């Protein structure tokens, strides 16, 4: 990536020497990302984030399919970028149907199939795995249902790209480089040959995403995806075993805890649990002081003051929520230390709330 900063600074759409070198680097990165995600190079575009890839993917596919209808079908626990794009579609007069999930956060594949089979469905969206609870979605079944109904499927692979194989059969695929260990500011939007798509943005001379690509970051993103895919065979099972340990130990060490998400069909590195009678913000602050940078879906920790739509749709506890994402290279000792500090932190917070 440092080499790419020297060689790849120029605008790949120009004709001078440095621009042609940048163009070459960009095309090499595109071919590499395409291969790793199971796409053709000419199907892959780079955006300025995973969120932008989703916005362009959803709104552009809906525009491209305007004659087929105005119905959008999406899972209830999709990333907020999908749901916000759905909001725009609804505001513009389109209809949106979300498909519910079970207690584990898994989309009801039967209800999804039924929803896409209704006339006027322009697009369906499903994530490969959930970003908050790690549950893997039934993408294969939903792909088959979409194919049978003749409805294009946008698969949001942000959580799993580089970690799990991308399920084939997508019409539109989105991903985000920072999720696989690449730099921030690079998203991927892949559109299968033959799938109708029209940019929701004003006319631009470039490809699907507007503007001059960040070539050095894209080169870094491709290298990071290659590295992640290569190390995953060893690192995935190792992280997954650590997640199993957290899932088993937390309810043993802390009373009144609900571990959420699918225990088996899940991402290797995410584990989420909720502690009854605990204020999520206090929990985050205390864990941060102990050196753990974790996230939460509790309403008091969100800027919106609304609990996570994922936890709500699952019908699980939303308060006292902790989401642990294990970074690559995390050690067994780090997990030990987390398990050592957690029980006392929860006890202290509960006692300040008068719960013993």
């Amino acid at each position, binding site marked *: 990536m440092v080499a790419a900063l020297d060689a790849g600074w120029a605008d790949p759409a120009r004709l001078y020497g440095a621009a042609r070198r940048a163009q070459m680097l960009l095309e090499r990165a595109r071919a590499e990302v395409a291969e790793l995600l199971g796409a053709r190079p000419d199907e892959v575009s780079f955006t300025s984030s995973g969120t932008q890839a989703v916005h362009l993917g959803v709104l552009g596919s809906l525009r491209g399919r305007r004659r087929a209808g105005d119905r959008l079908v999406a899972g209830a626990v999709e990333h907020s970028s999908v749901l916000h794009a759905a909001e725009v579609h609804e505001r513009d007069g389109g209809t*949106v149907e979300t498909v*519910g999930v079970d207690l584990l956060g898994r989309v009801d594949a039967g209800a999804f199939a039924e929803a896409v089979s209704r006339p006027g469905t322009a697009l369906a969206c499903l994530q490969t795995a959930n970003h908050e609870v790690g549950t893997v979605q039934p993408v294969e079944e939903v792909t088959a249902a979409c194919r049978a109904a003749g409805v294009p499927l946008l698969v949001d692979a942000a959580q799993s790209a580089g970690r799990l194989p991308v399920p084939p059969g997508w019409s539109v695929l989105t991903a985000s480089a920072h999720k696989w260990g690449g730099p921030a500011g690079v998203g991927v939007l892949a559109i299968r040959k033959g799938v109708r798509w029209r940019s929701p943005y004003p006319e631009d001379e470039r490809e699907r995403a507007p503007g001059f690509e960040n070539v050095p970051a894209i080169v870094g993103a491709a290298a990071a995806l290659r590295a992640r895919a290569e190390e995953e065979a060893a690192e995935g099972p190792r992280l997954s075993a650590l997640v199993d340990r957290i899932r088993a130990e937390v309810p043993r060490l802390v009373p009144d805890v609900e571990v959420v998400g699918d225990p088996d069909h899940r991402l290797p590195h995410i584990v989420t649990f909720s502690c009854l009678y605990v204020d999520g913000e206090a929990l985050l602050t205390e864990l941060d002081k102990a050196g753990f940078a974790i996230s939460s879906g509790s309403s008091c920790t969100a800027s919106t003051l609304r609990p996570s739509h994922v936890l709500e749709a699952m019908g699980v506890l939303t308060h006292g929520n902790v989401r642990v994402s294990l970074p690559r290279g995390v050690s067994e000792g780090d997990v030990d230390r987390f398990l050592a500090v957690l029980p006392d932190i929860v006890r202290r917070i509960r006692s300040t*709330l008068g*719960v013993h």
Partner: protein
Amino acid sequence: MWRRRTAGGHASGARPTAPAASPEPAETPAPAERPSLTIDALGRKCPIPIIMLAEQINNVPMRDVVAVLADDPAAYTDVPAWCRLKSHEHVGSYDLPQGGWAIHVRRNY
């Protein structure tokens, strides 16, 4: 955030399939049974409404209903989830005219 009109999903007792915390008609028109205790947790943020419920549910006779009045959107999901975890029964959630809900819980043990 876009959260309404959810199709499919799980049906866990009286829990609505669309956990809409916005002022939409509640899934059950009116409570069938008068609560023997009402806990006013209006204006209180989660987890306080749940803590109040846990403290007071044993004050009513077995199989009686406690109503929790709450307007924190988290309570709408968390009270039924608490019932599931603690093996009490979530009878239903009913809209209050001033906003928020009366969430009815039956003491099971």
